[in-house]
């Protein structure tokens, strides 16, 4: 285990986040842990509301406060616990060492600033010694890097298409050569044809700069193309975690199986997709036992009574289920 | 409404009004506003009957008396009990406010809906007229109209309502415009639903919330404006104990008997505060973005 810790570039340990809404408490993230090596890509997969975005925001420490409260856990980047840093120190990390790409490019850009200035802003924040002219040139370089002509530096977001805006957001995220990129459903809001372009761009740039990435998505197809490791999130917990191969070849958790079953499969001529029955649990009132048990076709009394722990069923392949994995 | 029978039959019908009300009073300030408003209305309705004095009962030996046990708010220049006059005058002030808000909003909704829904030349003409209408500040227009119509209760309502129309029209039109492109209207049109029916049956219920909030706020504003008018001498006239008229009545004695104008003014402030708090809560409750 100690050997593993040494090579971990990002190590997330037992983080827990709640949202307070009036008297209600929403358990958004409940003890999530994972490790990443440098240059690796981790896919966080799950339904809307499972807590994926909250995990990313917690790493960057930009949870909306109030109502979000970081209850506990450690987030170590290169051995430094980000949670212990002062806000001042954290400012230097945001946008520089860790950058984020947001879900909706339509709203992620400030409508009243030129796209160039928005890229310039992040460059200025983290390159205090360089002159403005130099940085403006670099912002232009960044635009060209994401295939936007430098001449459009002075234009406003409303003059760009959705795909172009997302490329601007990517340029902004990559401007300071981050070591870790948090991509929060970077293609969900885009047209299918544009999705592929943007994903290719992210992959290409990531490989070029050896950036580690956490890719948040609910699209297993995207994960298959892009990621090295996969963590399936359900109700704020990791229910299955492992490298891409073991998740895709040895799908174990009933929820993950459900996710795969709900994908359209062209090779089999199915008339209907198989959705997972039921709704995600109310995060203010999680079930006592396994969070997935109300929707799980295999659930037993044991599942409803005891909360299962994450178990390693094969080297590097973890599953949180009372039943599965035992029989194998 | 909340019994089990209706719950099965039409749970949605019950929720619309009651739910809004429940959500409204959830915020402590809106609750305070609601309670205050109810108390004021109650006091104004039954208060005058409980008082030992009549509204026009003179007591020339006891004029401009400071507040005491016998006259909690003191007496005015003619020795009339101020408390009972305030309670009685509240009927005028409140009904002025409510009637004006209703009248102004109704006109605003109709004209605004027509402008927003029919669009084109109709809209352009209406909106240009509204531009001109609102180029004369509401308060001024109100002064002018009440000057030209003459004083009195009905005329004051008219004068007060006129100034609020352009705002109401703009609000309603903006709402309709926001809603106009939505699919459910196309759906209604595709089954050949008549335009007026679409407007009133499908469109209006979906856009009425801001107008309700606006009307509530207007009540408060109108009470102030009515008082201002009366104070200047263009609204309701003394001896009618409308709050503004009472202020006008007492302004001559302001330096030596400030209590004569202190209490009516305080009542205006309190009433308007209650209505504003309520309106604020209503706005939050009706805001679809805040609904969860």
């Amino acid at each position, binding site marked *: 285990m100690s050997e593993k810790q040494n090579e971990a570039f990002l190590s997330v340990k037992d983080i827990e986040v709640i949202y307070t809404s009036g008297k209600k408490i929403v358990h958004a993230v409940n003890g999530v842990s994972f490790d990443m090596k440098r240059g690796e890509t981790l896919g966080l997969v799950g339904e809307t509301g499972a807590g994926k975005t909250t995990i990313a925001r917690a790493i960057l420490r*930009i949870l909306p406060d109030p109502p979000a409260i970081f209850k506990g856990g450690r987030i170590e980047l290169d051995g430094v616990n980000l949670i212990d840093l002062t806000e001042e120190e954290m400012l230097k990390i945001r*946008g520089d060492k860790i950058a984020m790409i947001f879900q909706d490019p339509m709203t992620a850009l400030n409508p009243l600033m030129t796209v160039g200035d928005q890229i310039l802003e992040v460059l200025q924040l983290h390159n205090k010694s360089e002159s403005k002219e130099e940085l403006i040139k670099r912002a232009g370089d960044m635009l060209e890097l994401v295939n936007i002509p430098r001449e459009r530096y002075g234009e406003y977001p409303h003059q760009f298409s959705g795909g172009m805006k997302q490329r601007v957001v990517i340029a*902004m995220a990559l401007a300071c050569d981050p070591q870790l990129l948090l991509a929060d459903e970077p293609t969900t809001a885009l047209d299918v044809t544009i999705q592929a372009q943007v994903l290719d761009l992210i992959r290409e740039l990531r490989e070029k700069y050896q950036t580690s990435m956490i890719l948040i998505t609910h699209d297993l197809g995207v994960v298959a193309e892009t990621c090295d490791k996969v963590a399936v999130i359900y109700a704020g917990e990791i229910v299955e975690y492992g490298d891409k191969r073991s998740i895709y070849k040895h799908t174990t958790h009933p929820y993950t199986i459900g996710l795969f079953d709900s994908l359209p499969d062209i090779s089999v001529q199915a008339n209907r997709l198989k959705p997972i029955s039921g709704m995600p649990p109310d995060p203010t009132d999680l079930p006592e036992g396994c969070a997935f048990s109300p929707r799980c076709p295999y659930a037993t009394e044991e599942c409803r009574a005891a909360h299962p722990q994450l178990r390693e069923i094969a080297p590097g392949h973890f599953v949180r289920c009372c039943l599965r994995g035992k029989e194998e | 409404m909340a019994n089990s029978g209706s719950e099965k039959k039409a749970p949605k019908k019950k929720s619309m009004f009651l739910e809004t009300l429940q959500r409204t009073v959830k915020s402590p300030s809106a609750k305070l506003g609601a309670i205050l408003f109810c108390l004021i209305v109650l006091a104004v309705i039954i208060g005058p009957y409980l008082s030992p004095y009549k509204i026009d009962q003179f007591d020339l030996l006891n004029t401009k008396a400071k507040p005491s046990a016998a006259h909690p708010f003191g007496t005015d220049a003619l020795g009339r009990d101020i408390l009972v006059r305030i309670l009685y005058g509240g009927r005028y002030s409140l009904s002025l406010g409510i009637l004006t808000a209703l009248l102004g909003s109704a006109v605003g909704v109709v004209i605004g809906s027509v402008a927003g829904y029919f669009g084109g030349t109709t809209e352009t003409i209406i909106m240009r007229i509204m531009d001109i209408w609102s180029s004369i*500040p509401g308060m001024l227009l109100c002064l*002018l109209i009440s000057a030209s119509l003459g004083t009195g209760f009905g005329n004051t309502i008219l004068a007060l309502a006129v100034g609020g129309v352009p705002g109401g029209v703009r609000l309603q039109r903006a709402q309709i415009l926001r809603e106009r492109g939505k699919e459910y209207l196309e759906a209604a049109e595709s089954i050949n639903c008549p335009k007026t029916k679409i407007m009133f049956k499908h469109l209006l219920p979906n856009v009425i919330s801001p107008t309700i909030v606006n009307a509530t706020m207007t009540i408060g504003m109108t009470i102030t404006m009515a008082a201002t008018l009366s104070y200047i001498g263009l609204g309701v006239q003394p001896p009618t104990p409308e709050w503004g008229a009472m202020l006008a009545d007492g302004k001559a004695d*302001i330096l030596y008997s400030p209590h004569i104008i202190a209490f009516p003014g305080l009542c205006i402030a309190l009433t308007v505060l209650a209505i504003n708090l309520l309106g604020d809560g209503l706005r939050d409750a009706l805001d679809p973005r805040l609904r969860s």
Partner: protein
Amino acid sequence: MGRYVLRRILMVIVIMIAAAFVIFTILYFTPGDPAKNLLGASATAEEVENMRHVLGLDQPYLVQLGNFMYNTFLRFDLGNSWTYSVPVMQELGNRLPYTVTIGGISMILNVIIGLLLGIFAATHEGKWQDSVAMIIAMVFISVPDFWLGLMMIVLFAQKLKWLPPYGVQYWYSFIMPIIVSSIAGIAVNARQTRSSMLEVFRSDYITTARAKGQKEKVVVRKHMLPNALMPIITSLGTAFTSIVAGGAVVESVYSIPGVGLYMLTGITNRDYPVVRGCVIFFALFTSIAMLLVDLAYAFVDPRIKAQYSASAAGKRKGA
């Protein structure tokens, strides 16, 4: 953009003409005979007839209207006051400084204090500072301004003897009028600023700015405030109008010889040239304020600017 400005200025002129028409017509059809009113109850029918002729009231509506419009817009002559025989234009000129001083300072206070208070409340959302600020704002919105003015006279002039109760003799005579005419506007503006700040507070681009490592203070100033400014500008336009209109009452409470008080005496005396002149003056002020609001929109928001320069047929945005 230049074409748009030109169009808007043209519209101000059209609105002014229309407003002049409206006020003339309202007064024309007001019941009662101003000539009789002017001469008093003892005047004979002949005297009244004579007076009507002198004032031009015996002419048909269209002729009177035509004369009025011609004099107002082509000769910039608003006529003489019927009661005092002084040219209205000259009197307006004399009174303008008082009204503009009070209105202008109130507006400046409104912008500065209102914005700061609103930002303060928004950045402390849900905490006690926010609640206190908003409760105070709500109280000041609810208090009738003229009554507040009267109460302040009782307190500061009568009881404490700090300030003169009325008049324009000293510079500190203006303190109370300015406070009274600005305070409600400040409260409204603070509330508006707070709510539009909160609206942009949770916007994605604010998160983007934070994710860049930008300091919270700079995020507020550089990203939130400009985006929150549109509704604030609208509300400032309204505030300006209500300061102008409410000025009449404040001037009457503090006996300040401004345009508002002039109009009120005009109304009481049925001195139509005075009333018409004042209304046209106020309408001009309002129109200019609206014009500035529209131009400010274009200045703040590149999207609106693009709209304006793209299509000359750009419609005015409804408030």
